[in-house]
């Protein structure tokens, strides 16, 4: 139950952060990505603030012997740069650039009841399931562990 409560609190903070930062507004995200229009630097400040707090906070967390409500830290340890990473990030970039939604803001707008976001989220879940299907089918070579 403790894990659910802390995750709930983290989700709440995350949603507030997206709203306060303006990143719940896809127009501002697209304004950052559009270097040749009226550039909106906000996303860089959001990343900067987020990275500063997360970097210091993670360093502090990891000096502890373990997390408060779970057995151990589960941190990806892969260092290889494979084709899936670049292809996936590229496909993600196209989708992100088309309408300005990445998963967090899209879910937030979906929870707010916005029609466009709900359709986006539905398609996003389909894309995730499609990857799951590709991953477990024989289309792809096995062997790459998930991070």
């Amino acid at each position, binding site marked *: 139950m403790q894990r659910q409560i802390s995750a709930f609190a983290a989700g709440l903070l995350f949603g507030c952060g997206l709203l306060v930062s303006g990143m719940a507004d896809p127009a501002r995200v697209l304004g950052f990505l559009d270097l040749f229009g009226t550039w909106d630097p906000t996303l860089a400040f959001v990343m900067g603030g987020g990275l500063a707090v997360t970097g210091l906070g993670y360093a502090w967390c990891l000096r502890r012997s373990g997390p408060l409500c779970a057995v151990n830290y589960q941190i990806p340890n892969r260092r290889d740069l494979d084709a899936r990473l670049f292809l996936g990030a590229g496909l993600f970039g196209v989708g992100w650039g088309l309408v300005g939604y990445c998963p967090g803001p899209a879910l937030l707008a979906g*929870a707010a009841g916005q029609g466009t976001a709900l359709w986006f989220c539905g398609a*996003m879940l389909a894309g995730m399931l499609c990857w799951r299907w590709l991953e477990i089918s024989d289309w792809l070579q096995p062997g790459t562990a998930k991070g």
Partner: protein
Amino acid sequence: MGLAGGALIGAAAVLLMLANGRIMGIAGIVGGVIQEPRSADTPWRLAFLAGMAVPAVAATALGLFPASVPAGMGMVLVAGFLVGLGSRMANGCTSGHGICGLARLSRRSMAAVATFMAVAGLTVYVVRHGLGGM
């Protein structure tokens, strides 16, 4: 407000690590729920999503939630599908790679962020400036 909001997002990531020992990757949280619903992680993942819904509903009730950008239904569906497929294929999205991964100086995350930023910028350029103002 960008810095303050970013700090809140960072605080959320630190809380999830401190309490549960987990990376705050939204694509991973949602993807985990639909791909492995019987996982022992499903309850906390759902709790995270429920927590996100609270400020969304509150901001909507106050009339503060920003509108989506105008886009055709076909484009919205294609974009959503690509974001879902790509974020799982690359093991992360803007939060998992962009915040949590960069904060721990992961080289996979650096490569992913550089790639999706560049491709997203190029996509916006093509849509807004490259197709005769489409």
